[in-house]
């Protein structure tokens, strides 16, 4: 396939072709079978990758059944009679005479207007703003001082609040299709004023895909120390009493620090932190050069082989963070950490002294685990490893000329052998200080 065709396919799949490029694609899909198959296949792989990312269908099922329930198939007449029967359990008129049916229907329609207003007076605060769904439970709706567990029958109304426990979650789908998910001890209140959504976000973690909002009616999120103004985008916001951290995946969000009213615009792949003590600045997100999947007690040998491309970098940051079930029992080890050059020659990282190290719990050291005991993995002693505990970071200045960082990441026996252990960790490697990632993880673990 010609390189220019590959480029055309990419541009087409992201919906950013010019008119001329579309003409070319139309010509190709019509007359060039190979190109047509290639484009169809590229779309299928893109679709499959998307399905990997969005693999839960429970939420969709709930929404479908709710929508199907809302779309009552019964006719207008049925509805009128149904409403009439609410106040007067009289028999439904039967098809006796046309004029009788006609007059009944007319009378009923007039009556229903009054009945509907009488029965379902549209009090503004009782209007449904959004649907609610909790996959893992432990999420509560607070209305008029009463707290109730969230289930699919509840709708969000003006003035409602939500509280989410440590392992709980709640997804909110607004009437305009904006989707928000709250996790990790979130506390949040909702209101709509003159058509504009306002969210008071006291603490927790929020992820959102915001549908473009009406002109002049942005979504505003107030945290203890900032205001975030959103027009339509995808972002994540983590909040505690000390700081708010905003990361934007798509679009842009304006963040204003309450202390001095300073504003910044945070765009895709950028982040900003607002706190009373620190000047607000926009930074690029650093991506991990390596990230493991979650290692837990079901992982074979509780270990993962780590190979990270460092491409001659002079800096190395080793991060261990918790899996999905909090930081308890998360004892980890970096076994045989080493650097490898282009010729495959290895250099043990243990020959170097780290520049900085920090962990959320216990001790860190070569040959010792987080309890300060001998580092053990699967009953084997490891003097050639670094023991630590999530959340942790180790910073090294490394010699030049190395292409790869290699190690075996493990859950040490000190974590795995505890009663009722739920150890689960993730290993990440960076070549630039992952400030945004580390602070985000810190914010999460502080909430736990």
């Amino acid at each position, binding site marked *: 396939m010609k390189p220019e065709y590959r480029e055309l396919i990419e541009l087409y799949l992201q*919906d950013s072709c010019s008119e001329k490029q579309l003409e070319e694609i*139309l010509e190709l899909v019509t007359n060039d079978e190979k190109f*047509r198959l290639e484009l169809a296949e590229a779309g*299928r792989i893109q679709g499959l990758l998307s*399905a990997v990312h969005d693999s839960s269908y429970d939420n969709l099922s709930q929404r*479908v059944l709710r929508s*199907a329930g809302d779309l009552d198939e019964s006719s207008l007449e049925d509805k009128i009679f149904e409403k009439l029967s609410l106040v007067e359990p009289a028999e439904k008129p039967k098809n006796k005479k046309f004029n009788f049916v006609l007059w009944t229907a007319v009378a009923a329609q007039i009556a229903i207007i009054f009945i509907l207003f009488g029965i379902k007076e549209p009090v503004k605060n009782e209007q449904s703003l959004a649907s609610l769904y909790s996959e893992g439970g432990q999420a509560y709706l607070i209305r008029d001082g009463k707290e109730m567990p969230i289930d699919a029958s509840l709708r969000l109304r003006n003035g409602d609040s939500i509280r989410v426990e440590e392992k709980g979650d709640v997804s909110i789908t607004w009437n305009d299709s904006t*989707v928000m998910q709250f996790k990790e001890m979130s506390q949040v209140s909702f209101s709509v004023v003159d058509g504009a959504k306002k969210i008071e976000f006291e603490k927790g973690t929020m992820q959102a895909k915001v549908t473009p909002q009406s002109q002049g009616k942005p979504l505003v999120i107030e945290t203890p120390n900032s205001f975030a103004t959103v027009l339509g985008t995808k972002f994540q916001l983590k909040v505690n009493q000390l700081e708010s951290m905003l990361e934007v995946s798509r679009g842009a969000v304006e963040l204003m620090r309450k202390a001095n009213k300073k504003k910044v615009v945070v765009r895709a792949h950028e982040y900003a932190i607002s706190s009373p003590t620190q000047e607000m600045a926009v930074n690029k997100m650093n991506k991990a050069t390596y990230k493991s999947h979650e290692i837990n007690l079901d992982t074979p040998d509780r270990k993962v082989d780590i190979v990270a491309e460092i491409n001659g970098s002079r800096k190395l940051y080793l991060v261990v963070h918790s899996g999905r079930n909090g930081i308890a029992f998360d004892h980890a080890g970096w076994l045989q950490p080493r650097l490898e050059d282009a010729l495959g020659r290895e250099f043990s990282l243990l020959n170097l002294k780290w520049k900085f190290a920090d962990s959320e719990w216990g001790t860190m050291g070569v040959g010792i685990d987080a309890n300060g005991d001998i580092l053990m993995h699967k009953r084997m002693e490891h003097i050639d490893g670094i023991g630590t505990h999530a959340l942790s970071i180790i910073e090294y200045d490394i010699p030049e000329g190395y292409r790869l960082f290699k190690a075996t990441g493990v859950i040490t026996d000190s974590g795995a052998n505890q009663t009722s252990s739920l150890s689960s960790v993730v290993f990440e490697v960076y070549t630039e200080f992952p400030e945004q990632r580390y602070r985000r993880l810190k914010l999460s673990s502080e909430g736990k």
Partner: protein
Amino acid sequence: MQDMNKLVKKILDGDKEAFKEVVKAYGPSMRVYLTGRLSDRLAVDDLMQEIFVAVFWNLKTYDGKSDLGVWIRAVTRNKLMSYLRSHYSQKNSVNTMKVKIEEALTAELENFNPNENVVIERLKECISKQRDLASELINARYFENESVTGMAERMDTTVSAISSELYRIRKQLKMCIEKGTDL
């Protein structure tokens, strides 16, 4: 198909909850199909909901003789085309061309497979075997939805280079899914 027919009967008999099984079985195929055609993920989510609601209400017209997946694919295709026509309702040449291209492509798309989850699980394994650069590109392009232009700018390279790398990655992923070949 027999199991699906039993499921359909249960739904038609009033067990609405059983419809969740239909969503679970065909949701992945539908997402794969729609996300391959629409770059807007929010639009895909909305369309999926709309299609499944339509399937729910029209189940009584399903005769049980053909594969349910074929039937749902037909409903999906029709909904997609009407979405595209309404979305690109301005009758300018760009929009007309987009609809024509999609019409040409739908002929190449496979029927809905209730076992698409198996393919997706295999793909997850394939992704986990990716080297770092490939993993980063997949993440940026397909999970973060970053444009190839943005990626090229960020990585200080050309759109053509990124496109070629993505092309190579897709080929490897396809091979890995089909033959279990390691990357």
